[in-house]
């Protein structure tokens, strides 16, 4: 009952006038993050129909200069020899209410950490930093690429946070908190963080989710405990983010069934168009 009311409340709150302004800022990333955004298919269209205007996105929208935004999804790390990128990320911070590091390059440097420069045709492009090293970031969405579903969840929760009623704001705040905490925790995460923060602290339960989340299969389980191949690790931070012992948001996660229904409810009309 309570849940139905929540879903109804979202429908009421969706009036077009209240759409939030969403932007995709593209730095040194492979466009995989943007593909993940688009991989929400009808759900993405539904978000654009009812909840957000895409006000900036080099690939999809014809806008040249970074505008004022409610939520900026930033893909890729910053090449600090590229003045334009450095200006872009500063501009993004100044003009956005919420800056989201979209994907592991923006959050942790990821594969771009391994750049050494020296190649044609601009050999001076050689040092790449996650955006958090240059500006304050509000929310992290780690993942290489980030999963479409997490982007969708964050987009809907950001909408509820900015435009929802009190109850929705509270839920969105609770949902986003761990992703905000990740943004505060720092700009480097790799398998070592599981070692330092989980395994060494006597918290690992051998569940195996770290291995499942690793995009390069750098993690094997030896007698139940994760063993990372540090030569393979690309520093995407996924294993750390996914581990139930890095963060576990008990009251939000125990609401999994109703939150899933709220999200499904918010995206419902999009599904009907399939």
């Amino acid at each position, binding site marked *: 009952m309570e849940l139905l009311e929540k879903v109804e409340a979202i429908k009421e709150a969706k009036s077009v006038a209240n759409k939030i302004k969403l932007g995709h800022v593209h730095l040194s990333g492979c466009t995989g993050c943007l593909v993940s955004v688009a991989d929400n298919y009808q759900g993405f269209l539904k978000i654009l129909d009812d909840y957000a205007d895409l006000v900036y996105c080099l690939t999809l929208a014809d806008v040249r200069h970074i505008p004022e935004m409610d939520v900026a999804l930033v893909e890729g790390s910053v090449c600090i020899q590229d003045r334009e990128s450095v200006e872009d990320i500063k501009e993004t911070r100044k003009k956005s209410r919420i800056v989201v590091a979209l994907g592991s390059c923006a959050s942790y440097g990821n594969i771009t950490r391994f750049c050494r420069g020296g190649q044609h045709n601009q050999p001076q492009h050689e040092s790449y930093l996650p955006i958090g090293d240059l500006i304050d970031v509000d929310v992290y969405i780690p993942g290489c690429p980030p999963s479409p579903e997490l982007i969708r969840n964050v987009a809907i929760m950001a909408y509820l946070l900015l435009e929802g009623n009190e109850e929705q704001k509270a839920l969105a705040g609770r949902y986003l908190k761990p992703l905000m905490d990740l943004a505060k925790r720092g700009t480097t995460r790799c398998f070592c963080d599981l070692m330092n923060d989980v395994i060494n602290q006597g918290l690992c339960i051998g569940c195996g989710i770290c291995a499942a989340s690793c995009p390069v299969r750098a993690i094997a389980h030896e007698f139940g405990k994760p063993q990372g191949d540090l030569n393979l690790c690309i520093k995407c931070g996924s294993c750390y*983010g996914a581990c139930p012992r890095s963060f576990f948001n008990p009251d939000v996660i125990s609401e999994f069934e109703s939150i899933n229904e709220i999200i499904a409810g918010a995206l419902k009309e999009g599904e009907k168009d399939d």
Partner: protein
Amino acid sequence: MIEDPYLGKYVTCVSARSTDKEILKKAQDGGIATALMVYALEQGIIDGAIVAGKGDLPWKPRPFVAMSREDILKAQRAKYNISPQVSWLKEATRSFGLDKVGVTGVCCQMQAVRKAQLYPINMRDVPGKVAFAVGLFCMVNFPYDSIQALVEDHANKSFSSVKKMEFGKGKFFVHTERGNVSTVPLKETHKYEQSGCHVCLDYVSNLADISTGSVGSPDGWSTVFIRTKVGNEIWSKAVAEGLFETKPIEEVKPGLGLVMKLAKEKIDKNRKTLEERRNFGVNKALRDPYA
């Protein structure tokens, strides 16, 4: 919906056992976990299930994606050591191409699955494709070497002669294929426990669709919590089709009271451990994973 601080949310709780003779023969308890996954597979509710099957050493589980009744049956009986069960969660949807994944596992593994659904960090396709999660009650788990030491050094049985292991009535029981039973007092087992279990705040798999365990029900029967809409629908249909014999939990001995007592014991003790972690050093804390 009942909401209990120790037993979690649930629609109903019953005592039950499978009516399938083949499943019952090798089940740990009432064969609930296996019968439910087989049913879900046969009904098309899932395309395959992640279960803890036989590994390369005796009683060492190997998580794998079972795609047939036969494979699900191979995973029967509790192996009291770590099975990195959810390491297959994303692969099940990708390499195995499953659209509807079933998962069995202990409480913390249910937590991992639900976190992966709600915060899918590098877990593309997982959130919508977990179709059915069956959780087991769990007091504590052991590393493989530890369970081997308990069986071989404490119970004095060769690992390969063991038919079934069991915790209950204050003891660890080791049953051999030839019908011999050895017991080890529970207090001797504590030092072998996995330390990560000592902060675990769940005894009855609160986050599963359906959770089951032996405690509370008579031998050969299981205690079953039906927890979610998905779980309730599957359970109702399976019972209507005669897959399970059921009894109201109020009518069996020792009943829900014992489940509650053990849940409370585990969770209160582990809350204390979390408290101790807060002052582990001098003005220094160990991490609290729930903070």
